[in-house]
């Protein structure tokens, strides 16, 4: 299974599953990160500690730990 963290800058992928705990899942969903949504990786902080993704028109920053919990597939 591919994780969001594995993606490179510029990749466009589709979310297939959120492996987060309930609290974090709610948080991700409130930002629009949910099953079936397409995201694009915009930027990576040094050593991939933090990544910036784009979903619709919103840009969101995620820590590597959180990006690991999001399963994606290529489109």
């Amino acid at each position, binding site marked *: 299974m591919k994780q969001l963290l594995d993606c490179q800058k510029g990749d466009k992928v589709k979310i297939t599953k*959120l492996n*987060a705990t*309930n*609290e*974090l*899942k*709610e*948080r*991700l*969903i*409130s*930002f*629009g*990160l*949910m*099953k*079936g*949504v397409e995201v694009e990786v*915009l*930027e*990576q*902080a*040094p*050593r991939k*500690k*933090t990544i*910036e993704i784009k979903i*619709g*028109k*919103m*840009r*969101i*920053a*995620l*820590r590597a*730990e*959180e990006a690991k919990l999001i399963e994606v597939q290529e489109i």
Partner: protein
Amino acid sequence: MNEKKSCPVISKHIKVALVGQPNVGKSMLINSVSNAHLQVGNFSGVTVDKTEVLFDYENHKFTVVDLPGTYAFTDYTIEERVTRDYLCAENYDIIINVVDSTNLAKNLQLTAELLTMSKRVVIALNMSDEAKKEGLEIDAKYMSELLGVSCVKVSAVTKEGIVELITTVIADFESSTYEVKLIFSEAVEEEIAKIVAYLQGHKYEAINSYRNIAINLLKNNKKTYEKLHDDPIWIELQPILIEASKHIELHHDSDDIKESFAEEYASFNRGIVAEVVKQSVQVEQKTLTEKIDNVLIHPIYGIPIFLFFMWTLFQLTFEIGAIPMDYIDAFFGWFGDAIGGTIPNDDVRSLIVDGIIAGVGAVVLFVPNIIILFIGIALLESTGYMSRVAFLLDGFFHKFGLHGQSFIPLVTGFGCSIPAYMSARILKNDRDRLLTLFIIGFMSCGARLPVYVLFAGAFFGPEMAGNILFMIYISGALLGIMAAKILKMTAFKGVDEPFVMEMPKYRLPSAKLIWHTVLTKTMMYLKKAGTFIAGASMLIWFLSNYPHNLVLQEEYAKKIESSTSETQKITLGNKLAESLLEQSYLGVIGKFSEPIFAPLGFDWKMSVALQTGLAAKEVVVSTLGVLYALGSDVDAENNSLVNAISKNIPFPSAVAFIVVIMIYLPCLAASVVFTREAGGVKYFFYLLAFTSITAYGLAFVAYNVTKMIV
């Protein structure tokens, strides 16, 4: 205004709750609304989390409650909790849901949740001017029909649609029909219908509509459950609900009903957006924000650029801030003399001039720095750059258990701990926020500068003093980061809090909004800090002046009278001040606590200075001045105090003293703000214990190490 009329038309009071996601221009909108009909509002500032604005329109009195921005109805952050609790429990008539027209799909996610409440909602499609520029055309009328809720296009910037928004609110408030059309997928609708039918069949009495009750039950809404749980129908209802939840989860291929509902809302919103939004020009080119981000959050240049901005802010804070300081200082000196001249009673004059005016003056002195710092922070916030910095620094800060967004309070801490504690609110998570609150004190605030200047001047030549100052500040910051790591491994142990943050669009800041923010914050600083400092100054004044010892005074008065030379008179006067202080309450406290501080090499005078420093760090210098018998009229530049200190205090003790000043409790006012922000008195005692033990331990080490070297 209308109150003057003898017989006013019956005016109705409408209480509006203003709700929206963060970064949708809510504050701007409330500004435009209240300004269009200027009846000055009651801005209560950051203290009470929500802001109220009052204004009149025709025959209606409006109270608009501006609630903190929230992404969803969860209680993840303080802001979200405040908003949710207000919407669920308080009394209000109507909700204005502010949405960003340029990003409708995301904003409607919150709207969908609002629509399941039993309150009327008016949707303000804000930033309609920006949407137009981006080639987005929204059919507000069609949208109103689809949702069953009034939608009005507005722009807080151009003030377009503001009047229409107000009249719509009035019309909706007065109309009796109200039918929200929030449609789910067939599977969910089926289950809702079953529950509604059951409630209808049993004539369950409720204010909320059956449909909303059904939705809330399916969404596992705690409050709705609590209400129904005590009702006899619960026994029959429960199996229906379990069955319904199973069906919905099966339909969504998920074991989480909340996730399923979020998906339901999202697909409903996608439908609405597809219907009402027309994109005239299909532009897939890079937006301005993306272009700026390419530079500002660049993996290599990003951090140097940030450091440059911070350096500039500090330079401005200290360079420009220093200009009015002399004037303010001179003013309070003059003011004290002028007032003092009119008071015949010695004690009262001393209390007012040396106690209150001097104490309050010390606080007002830092207002220019604080204004500049606040402007800088408001700019960082309103342009959207702050989120970028958090993005850049999170990797580094995370290693020490801190959060990327901790940097703002920490940086503010170099100016003054009080606004720093307040700005820690930007940290969404309680644990991150508490950890940051605990280490803000390590960032040496402006009030400690005079103490450092004094000691650096006493033991080092002028060419070294600057470097020593820089070293003190840097080592304070490093100690703070290490303390964070230690706290994270012990007291704040636990899983790391997630870092999920929106990176908002870059926006040009509105001068009016910045002015407003800075003004309210500065006024709060003056009011809060001023009252505490004034109180503390009075207390210190009292402790150092009482009990009076008339015998001693008379004895010295005679000596001074009989002395011939002017210098002798001054020496005797100083001796008197010293003896008086030694037997004052403060002196007694100092003598009493001397053994505690003896291992650090402090005499009773230094011990007293540290204790008065608990009230405010500015007081340390003036206390030392008084105690080393120079009269209270000393400042950091006073050479005779510098000499007295280098003569009377051994170098190792001085190092230990600086270490304690660096680490222990900031000041009384800051402690009060800390307690409020941390959310309980117990946290104050934790902070007291933590800083005191650390300060004592490190000072002990510093004292002994220096003694060995020197």
